[in-house]
């Protein structure tokens, strides 16, 4: 589904990666090694060189917004541009099932983003991205601020997305989580990307 051929950018050496629908590629590696740079390069949020295609269509052949709507990047510290939570969703009522799946109260929609906790914001950003129904989701430590229950909710929701054909590239610092969710694993160290054996 997602084919990456010799993609490189400042801080990241050229790498190849083919991800099929339903796969979950976990990205591990020390802090500052370039894991976020890798996700940002795939989403075309920073300048990069190389070929990236989705279902056979080159990234450069489509407008960048159309690309990012299908290959959606979820930042480690998600950004917000309006006051209330609901304003960040194109259709808040339609997002209700997702919000509940993520153990969040529906009343949170009326709250200002500023009063939500880090963990709440992390789950809201995930819901916000999922409502756009991307084909590939680029996750930058999506559960770093979550407790056990909320983390399990996120993992089970993403497992369902995967079962429905979505491809995931998931940066995680948590070795146990990597074992739970990964179908493949790549390691980023000093800007070099290497595919590893699972569990290795």
């Amino acid at each position: 589904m997602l084919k990456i051929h010799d993609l490189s950018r400042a801080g990241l050496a050229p790498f190849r990666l083919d991800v099929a629908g339903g796969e979950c590629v976990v990205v591990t590696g020390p802090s500052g090694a370039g894991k976020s740079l890798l996700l940002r390069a795939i989403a075309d949020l920073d300048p990069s060189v190389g070929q990236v295609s989705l279902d056979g269509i080159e990234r450069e052949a489509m407008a960048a917004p159309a690309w990012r709507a299908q290959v959606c990047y979820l930042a480690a510290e998600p950004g917000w541009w309006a006051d209330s939570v609901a304003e960040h969703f194109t259709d808040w009522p339609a997002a209700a099932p997702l919000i509940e799946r993520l153990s969040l109260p529906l009343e949170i929609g009326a709250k200002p983003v500023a009063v939500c906790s880090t963990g709440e914001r992390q789950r809201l950003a995930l819901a916000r991205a999922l409502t756009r129904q991307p084909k590939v989701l680029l996750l930058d430590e999506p559960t770093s601020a979550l407790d056990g229950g909320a983390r399990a909710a996120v993992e089970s929701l993403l497992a369902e997305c995967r079962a429905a054909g979505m491809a995931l590239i998931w940066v995680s610092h948590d070795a146990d989580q990597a074992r739970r969710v990964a179908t493949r694993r790549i390691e980023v160290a000093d800007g070099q990307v290497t595919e590893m054996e699972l569990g290795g």
Partner: protein
Amino acid sequence: MSYIPLSLADLAIAGLLVLVNGGLSLALGLGIERRLMIAAIRMVVQLLLVGLVLQALFGAASLAATAATALAMVLFAGREAVARQERRLSGWWSYGLGTASMLLAAGVVTTFALTTQLRPDPWYDPRYAIPLLGMVLGNTMTGISLGLTILTGDVSSGRAGIEARLALGADRYQAMLPLVRKALRGALMPVVNGMAATGLVSLPGMMTGQILGGVAPVEAVKYQIMVMFLIAGGTGLGATAAVLGGVFRLTDHRHRIRLDRLEARRG
């Protein structure tokens, strides 16, 4: 028209007030007497030079000389607009964008006033064109530098929010729209406040100047109203051009934010 001409002795008497300020600085240890004197001398020299230039210009009344003077004014204003910004665009964009916006806005507005409202003969008569351009330019410059300052500051501090929208498939104009709105609102606020306060809080210099020159107050007021409208138009046009140009430069064709096109924050 009647007015009382000033002699050099009259100016010297008024200048005593600056000397009084200097004495005050010495007596109270303010330590600004040197700068005060230099500033006063600069003011006198600069204004005398401008007076001479204008007198020569009005005598010649040539299109080329008037255009050259106007261009020089725009270039100086462009430099000033850049100097006032906290975070600048890198390279030539910084100076170029401010100056080009100013040239566009002040040029359009001044030409508009000269050809449809004032209609001097010839239309570029420097006695009308240059003072008018000066007033429009001064205010447009403030609007442009305010708009760009707000925009560049907000792009840096609001990057996460903008990129969140981009990552969800928004294009660069959708993602930057809230910033554009805020920058333009900030740029236009001085004009709005200025119009609301004129006549009550402040008597504009150009109007009082005409009254001192012997023009009937109602006639002077009419001129002032026209000038305020021109200033409002120039500021709106100039700030819009500058802010949209800034958005264009701070993003690229792949709808990415390009903070690398901003100069590092100065000390």
